């Protein structure tokens, strides 16, 4: 055929595709792709040390030599090489990140494994990693469970009143995490309605969120479940609408209990959706950050994202290198998290061809 007809091939010509996709592709390459590379480069640099000079001061009693910071030279150096000095993997292995030397030292010095783990989990990076993973581990399954239960439950009420009920249910999800956590914090804080009542109930006027690390963690995890469950609910609710009626009715006639019906008919039907929700909520939970600010929990709970934020809002010098190194390791974490899904997709894609 002489004419390059898209109709016979039933696909869009590459050239047309290119022009349609160019704007969004460019936006993503420039502002998602390049920043990742920029982060990678920055992670190999560290901020300059201050330039010092020796100042000789003489008075009638003799001369003293003191070392002072040469501000002028420091500024000059910073302006000449704004990226900082090359540091290789130095930032990655320093105390605030992987802390290789410290771990070696702890390994040699501590007597039992418990003490060693204790020491290591007190290092900033590992502390944040453990909080982030704990948060993911507790929030994700509970979100799936609670979302599913709410969906089943709402699916059983009369159609007429479902609209307002759904609206009420999705409220925690549509507010920004900072606002959501603040709204809860103001109630749970020792001066808020729930906090004050718990104090009365426990008869402990000093009981407060900030006083206990465990309590803070539990609160943030509860917040996470509260905030993310509506998302799981909405997806599950929509999926429940597509469950075929016949097998359910057949099962009822066969005398299957409600629980058996859910387990053997409903769950298998919505299984793909469950993986989807689990994946999305895992991705979102891994970046937990705003609630730590909302609950003012910096003292006892730090996440990987929070560490990066803390480096970037540093008062004196922004710690680009340190933030970038943590960012790169966070990205590696995301990659590990996503790997099973990507491998599965790749296999499906290959067999499909």
């Amino acid at each position, binding site marked *: 055929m002489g004419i390059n007809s898209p109709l016979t091939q039933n696909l869009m010509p590459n050239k047309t595709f290119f022009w349609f996709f160019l704007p969004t592709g460019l936006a993503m390459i420039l502002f998602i792709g390049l920043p*990742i590379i*920029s982060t990678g480069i920055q992670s190999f640099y560290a901020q300059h040390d201050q330039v010092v000079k020796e100042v000789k001061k003489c008075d009638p009693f003799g001369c003293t030599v003191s070392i002072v910071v040469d501000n002028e030279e420091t500024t000059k150096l910073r302006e000449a090489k704004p990226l900082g000095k090359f540091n290789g993997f130095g930032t990655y292995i320093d105390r605030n990140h992987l802390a290789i030397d410290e771990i070696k030292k702890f390994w040699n010095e501590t007597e039992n494994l418990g003490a060693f783990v204790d020491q290591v989990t007190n290092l900033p990076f590992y502390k944040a990693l453990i909080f982030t993973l704990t948060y993911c581990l507790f929030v994700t399954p509970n979100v799936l469970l609670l979302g599913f239960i709410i969906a089943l439950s709402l699916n059983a009420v009369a159609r007429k009143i479902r609209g307002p009920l759904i609206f009420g249910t999705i*409220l925690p999800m549509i507010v920004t995490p900072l606002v959501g956590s603040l709204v809860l914090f103001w109630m749970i804080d020792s001066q808020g309605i729930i906090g004050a009542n718990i104090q009365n109930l426990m008869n402990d006027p000093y009981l407060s969120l900030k006083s206990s690390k465990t309590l803070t963690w539990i609160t943030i995890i509860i917040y996470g479940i509260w905030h993310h469950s509506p998302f799981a609910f909405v997806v599950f609710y929509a999926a429940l609408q597509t469950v075929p009626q016949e097998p359910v009715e057949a099962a009822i006639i066969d005398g299957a209990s409600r629980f058996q019906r859910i387990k053997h008919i409903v769950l298998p039907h919505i299984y793909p959706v469950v993986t989807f929700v689990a994946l999305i909520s895992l991705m979102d939970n891994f970046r937990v950050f705003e609630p730590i600010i909302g609950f003012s929990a910096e003292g006892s709970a730090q996440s990987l994202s929070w560490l990066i934020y803390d480096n*970037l809002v540093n008062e004196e010098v922004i710690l680009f290198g340190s933030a970038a190194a943590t960012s790169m390791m966070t990205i590696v974490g995301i990659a590990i998290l996503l790997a099973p899904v990507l491998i599965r997709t790749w296999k499906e894609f290959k067999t499909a061809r």
Partner: protein
Amino acid sequence: MDYGLDRKSTSLKTFNTIFIIVWLLIACFPFIWTFWGSFKVRADFFSRSDWWYAISAFNTLIETGGKFTTDAYTQAWTEGEFWKASKNTIIVTVFVVSISLFLGTLGAYALSRSTERYAFWILIAALIFRAMPHITLVSGYLFPFFQLQIWGILPTTIVVLVAINQPFTLWLLYSFFKTVPKELDESALIDGCSYFQAFRHIIMPVMWPGVITAGLFSLMLAYNDFTVTALLLNQENHTMVPKIQSYLGTNQHEGNLMWAVSAVVSATAPLFMLVMFFQRQVISGLTAGAVKG
């Protein structure tokens, strides 16, 4: 599940009703409580002596002479310059939504109509981009933006938010475009339309539900963003969410908590009304792609 055959026992129904009421209370009460408290003075809403003051308005009565006061609102909006923050939020939101939709519809249409293997890989790449924590991207932006001297201004933030928003918008609109039959644009192509004309005159008119859903999500992202706006905008250009955070105060300076409370209510109310109005679109957006697996 209310099927004809399915008879629920009374106890199950009661249990279900109780469960829903409890859940709705958990979901909604914090917002109702904050709304209520925003009309009190600080000594009542954050009472050191008795939480009941928040309801009886003990101090509010003493300080203002009435049971309710709008002082927190007036002060936050004028003195606290919340008006400026909301102006900035409106600018950012309007631009992010319109640019996102413009880029997103073009790209997603192309993706949905191409059968080449690169279309598949682009979608996978978008999924990976979607997974990137925003703060890691911000740590990549800051240094170059300082060097180029484009840090702190609204246009930079708008472009960044548009880009961050693209992966999700693409996936969402892609699954919507997939539901539009290919025969529709093919017949237009036979009639001599170009791809762009088919897109513009045939496909877009039937795509409005999808576009509205995608628009709502872009709006929520731009309106709710904290990470990007807090770090990429200077004080002057702060939008509502970072502004609320600045009211909270730090160890160095005391904030003004009641400003934060009233600002939270002011920022949340329009969002709730919008979602109430577009509830169906929000839900169809969240489930697009998911239900089909």
